[in-house]
């Protein structure tokens, strides 16, 4: 990035109303922090007068910038490794080494684009270009296309999968909207333009049931499950009283509508029977016990969801921590707070300082989703190897080794279609749309990814005998099996098969074993390749992310 570009970006303010430290302010400080030493350096070392003069002028400019800044100098933003390394030291854990290139690349592509690498991509990836690869992926269309479905699942939970809502999220990612803007548009709209209209989908699915709405808002955006507190103070969590449940319900009790139109009733209160049996009207109270006074709202001009959005931003802790934790859960198979909807004082983060720190920095960056994703996947923690040979496996909450994660239905279905296909997939929009069509039949037959994943016989039966699987293996004269069958040399055949399915080079020992397996097969070449490829795509190496 050139200095001019950087200045341009730095000085372009983004309009925001609720952040204490605005992003452009933050960028300015960072720029000052990094440009000043260079200028001073050239001032001191330069021999020519014009150069010294230029440096002096530059220093003057930077000083004016710095004088305008009243906030403290910024820290390194979104640093995962510093905190994590301190944690490992304190817990006397030596983490695993960093994963090898092909394994890491496969992991990264699955997580950011929802599919395995093609053989071509796997061939060209270089581990020393990891950072550049992350940048490219995050800037590319495939990230938006796929990652919107990840956000959809975080927001919509069991109602995920609505095309229009996913479309809204794709556009939001494309436009670089922060998580805060997404939250605001989902809760408040305006649902006016074609692009923003589908954002109503979250409330739309829930408006007719206040309990569902209250519980889902708290789970999706604040990482807490307060459903127990509806009938009684939470038995296990001192944080959650009935006041909190009905306090949250009070923000949402006037929300009404459905079928695409959500409005705010002029009145309506959340009421519950107190211990004395008398009915009480619950004030609008956030999870932090902070209350919004009704008179603070201009009558008839605003709605209670507006108050909720405002208080969520002011009491930033829940809003920011919850999303960071949800993404952590997505990338590591377990949240820093686990389960992800149990963020309360009785269930602290396994690396407490880390979650707080990233959550604060996430807010400071303007809830920039790409930056958060980039920080996570760039960290050493994310890049750790999946193998552990060093005695007893450390508890999952230490994140000292990468754990196997099952592919989601979507990741698995898309990866199957790509590796078994004709090898031309290039991530273009046309291919992405086609991929969605090709996977519709596969998706419901596969096991969904859960934190407590268990494989079902149903999926195994489908993979073993399903007609859709057979078609993927046998249809087309340019699909993987056909291409392999046309390869004369067994070794070449095996190398291509492994490279295509596992996105890594074959090892010498497996080549030897598989070669003798081929020799013993005895069937026609086409059948032999079919059986080999089936065994590869149905194996655990393909089924899991590692």
């Amino acid at each position: 990035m050139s200095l001019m570009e950087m200045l341009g970006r730095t000085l372009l303010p983004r309009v925001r109303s609720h952040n204490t430290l605005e992003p452009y302010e933050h960028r300015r400080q960072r720029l000052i922090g990094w440009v000043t030493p260079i200028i001073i350096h050239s001032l001191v070392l330069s021999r020519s007068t014009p150069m010294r003069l230029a440096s002096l002028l530059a220093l003057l400019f930077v000083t004016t910038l710095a004088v305008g800044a009243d906030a403290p100098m910024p820290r390194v933003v979104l640093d995962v490794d510093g905190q994590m390394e301190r944690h490992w030291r304190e817990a006397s854990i030596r983490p695993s080494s960093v994963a090898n290139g092909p394994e890491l690349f496969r992991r990264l592509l699955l997580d950011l684009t929802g599919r395995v690498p093609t053989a071509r991509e796997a061939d060209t990836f270089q581990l020393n270009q990891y950072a550049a690869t992350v940048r490219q992926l995050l800037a590319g269309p495939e990230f938006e296309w796929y990652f919107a479905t990840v956000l959809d699942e975080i927001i919509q939970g069991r109602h995920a999968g609505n095309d229009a809502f996913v479309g809204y999220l794709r556009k939001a990612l494309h436009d670089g909207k922060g998580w805060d803007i997404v939250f605001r548009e989902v809760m408040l709209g305006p649902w006016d333009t074609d692009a923003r209209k589908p954002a109503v989908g979250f409330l739309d699915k829930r408006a007719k049931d206040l309990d569902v709405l209250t519980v889902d808002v708290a789970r999706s955006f604040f990482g807490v499950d307060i459903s127990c507190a509806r009938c009684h103070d939470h038995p296990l969590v001192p944080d959650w009283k009935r006041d909190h449940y009905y306090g949250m319900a009070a923000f949402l009790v006037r929300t009404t509508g459905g079928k695409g139109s959500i409005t705010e009733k002029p009145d309506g209160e959340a009421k519950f029977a107190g211990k004395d049996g008398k009915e009480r009207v619950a004030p609008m109270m956030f999870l932090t016990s902070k209350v919004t006074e009704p008179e603070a709202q201009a009558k008839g001009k605003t709605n209670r969801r507006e108050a909720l959005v405002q208080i969520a931003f002011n009491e930033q802790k829940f809003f920011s921590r919850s999303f960071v934790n949800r993404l952590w859960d997505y990338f590591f198979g377990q949240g820093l707070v686990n389960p992800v909807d149990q963020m309360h004082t009785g269930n602290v983060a396994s690396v407490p300082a880390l979650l707080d720190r990233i959550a604060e920095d996430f807010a400071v960056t303007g809830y920039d989703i790409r930056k958060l994703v980039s920080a996570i996947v760039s960290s050493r923690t994310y890049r750790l190897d999946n193998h552990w040979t060093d005695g007893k496996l450390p508890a999952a909450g230490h994140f000292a080794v990468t754990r196997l994660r099952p592919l989601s239905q979507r990741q698995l279905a898309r990866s199957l279609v790509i590796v078994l296909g004709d090898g031309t997939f290039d991530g273009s929009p046309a291919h992405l749309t086609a991929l969605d069509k090709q996977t519709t039949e596969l998706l419901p037959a596969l096991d969904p990814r859960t934190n407590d994943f268990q494989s079902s016989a149903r999926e195994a039966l489908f993979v073993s005998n399903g007609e859709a699987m057979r078609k993927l293996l046998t249809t087309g004269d340019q699909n993987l099996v056909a291409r392999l069958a046309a390869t004369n040399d067994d070794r070449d055949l095996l190398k291509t098969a492994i490279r295509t399915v596992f996105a890594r080079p074959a090892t010498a020992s497996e080549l030897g074993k598989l070669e003798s397996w081929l020799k013993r097969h005895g069937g026609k070449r086409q059948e032999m390749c079919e059986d080999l490829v089936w065994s590869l795509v149905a194996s655990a190496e393909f089924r899991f992310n590692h």
Partner: protein
Amino acid sequence: MNWGHSPEHSLHRRAFLHGSLAGLTTALSFGNIGISAAKPAAQSLRKRGRRVLFVWLAGGSSQFETWDPKPGRETGGPFRTIATAIPGYHVCELMPKLATMMRDITVIRSLNTGISEHEQAADLISTGRPKEAALDYPEIGVVLAKELAAKESPLPDYISFFTTTEGRRRPRAGFLGAKHAPLLLEKSIRPEHVTLADGLTETRHAEREELRALLSDRFAENRAGSEMVNGYNSAFQKVRGLMRADHLFDLNREPAAIRDRYGRTPFGEQALLARRLLEAGVPVVKVAKGFWDSHHDNFESHRELVPDFDQVLSVLLGDLKDRGLLESTLVIVLSEFGRTPVINPDVGRDHFADAWSVAMAGAGLRGGAVYGKTDADGKTVTEGRANASDLAATIYKAAGIDPRGDYQVGLRPVPRAKEDAKVIKEILA
């Protein structure tokens, strides 16, 4: 092929493979139980765990036209009642066969379950709990499948039929997860994907699975989280068992006389299949009979539905008893709810959850017990009022499972039956 790290595993796999191939030509057995239709195997079954069969009457059957008739009352409808094997207890005349078997049947006439909307009520009755926004409860059948599962069984723990179009529901595994989800038979009474794909031979199928398993085992070495690979491999190990069990789903293997007794209706065939599966060692089976939602012409539809139900259930119970299976098999007839005492202008009965009946038979129960009462018009429960949670707790108890046991869901211990559920001890053996 052996990658040199686990000869035992490989040997075992070979033995397994060999057995499966041999199994194609010889009669099969699961454990020590012969599955030929003619040979009951009571002795070995008695020693084994209990089994449960759910009979789901989708749409809501009428208690008036079955277990709790009110003859001569305004709410009673046109049918008469008949005496049963239990002195003093009468059922609707549409169930003559079950009437004679009442000593083996247990009836609860005093359910008040509160919810009278199909979906919500079906959720309530099949999980035994009110819905909770944040926790997805498993169906009672799934809980039973988990608890009654036989270790190392090649068969699924739960098989659920549902081939009628009305009220088709997939049992929810909820927080217990996919491993315990039932094998669903929705499109036909044979499971999906249990036959070889076109062009594939048994040998190829077995050999590629052998390679798949070896590649997976090799991959899993020293991996953090490799227990998931074990689970994945064990799911594939079920494949061959299920394919071998395909003949279980083949009713042509039953003598024609037996098929005729059950009747060649969808419900009759499901019931006969259920018996074959229970006998082979599947711990939980669910069958269903639809079209009970009689808002119009309640009496006409029950005149058609109840005799078929009477026929099939009586044959099934008799067959289970003859084979010595009834004492280890709990049979439960359930609906979402009952039907209204008031007969509507369309000569129908609407949804009614305030006072209705279910019937049960077999394991853990006191045969012939008739529990609870409703008033003369069947409008309210007057004695022995029980809710959906009480019913669930009673089912668990009868199946030999502690209703008070906990599951750990995240940080939260979740009791198997709802905290305040009361077991109906009066109907238990």
